[in-house]
């Protein structure tokens, strides 16, 4: 599986960066990255062809990130408080990553893909949003994000 090893080393950071932008957390980004490559490993072992490795990785990473959020959406109040305390202890994240966390999942994944300069066609394929709706959804999501960032900045200066 030399092929796998090369791919792993070449694309590890690409997958990690994507997961980090989306989840805003290093531990979880590392976990998702491990899962993405485990997935790849299993596919290669089954001798399944992957034609466009980069596109495939973006797709699987997006899907696993979404699954991760779904899985953790029912979070208890205590968990939430622990998480908040943990986050306060850690270095503050980049503003835009924090703002992204406030968006709904669909906008969040779309903007993360957009930040990687992915074509509308691929975005549609990955998110399941209709190709003809990508422009509109994207434009709205960007506006919402801008407002969220402005809101965060105002709070900081109060």
């Amino acid at each position, binding site marked *: 599986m030399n092929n*796998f*090893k090369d791919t*792993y*080393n070449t694309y*590890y*950071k690409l997958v*990690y*960066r994507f997961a*980090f*932008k989306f989840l805003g957390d*290093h531990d979880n980004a*590392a*976990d*998702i990255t*491990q*899962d*993405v*490559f*485990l*997935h790849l*490993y*299993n*596919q290669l072992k089954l001798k*399944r062809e992957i034609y466009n490795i980069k596109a*495939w990785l973006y*797709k*699987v*990473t*997006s*899907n*696993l990130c*979404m*699954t*991760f959020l*779904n*899985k*953790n959406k*029912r*979070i*208890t109040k205590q*968990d939430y408080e622990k998480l908040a305390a943990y986050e306060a202890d850690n270095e503050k994240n*980049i*503003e*835009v*990553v924090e703002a992204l966390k406030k968006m709904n999942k669909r906008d969040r994944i779309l*903007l993360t893909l*957009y*930040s990687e300069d992915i*074509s*509308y066609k691929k975005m549609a394929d990955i998110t399941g949003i209709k190709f003809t709706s*990508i*422009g*509109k959804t*994207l*434009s709205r999501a*960007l*506006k919402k*994000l*801008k407002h969220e*960032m402005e809101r965060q900045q105002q709070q900081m200066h109060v």
Partner: protein
Amino acid sequence: MKWKDNNSKCMSDEMIQIYIDNEIDAFEKAGMEKHFAECKNCNRRLYEHKKMISDFKQSISLVNIESIEIPEFKYEKTPVIARKKHRLFYWKWAAAAVILIASSLFIHEKLNTNSQNDVQYIIFDMSSEVDANKPLHEQTMSIYIIDKSGKQIETIINNL
């Protein structure tokens, strides 16, 4: 020169977005360029929209993970997503087993209908809200079926 060509309508945000991302054909593009040249209002909106996009790309480019080390790949049978966050007590596993048996027929059907999607993993997950004070039948368990692209093709939330 007229400020506005009556034949061409003002642009929607969507059109401006698509124009900036160059996701339109050459004919449409030419029409839009003509309009931007003639309509002061759309021209201003184009400028603002471009700025919004470049601000976004600029700020997200600050995410820098270059310093992280690439760990050695470890082959593990179970994906992390299925393992983490839920360190269950033994009694929760017992509860999970009961729910699992009760729902196995249901899962079996789901797997059959999804066989063309190449099921890759099945994740069983006791709810994080599991509460020791609640009786067993009020506990929730989620079952996720993940396909070969990592997509969640089925989510079964089970309340016995």
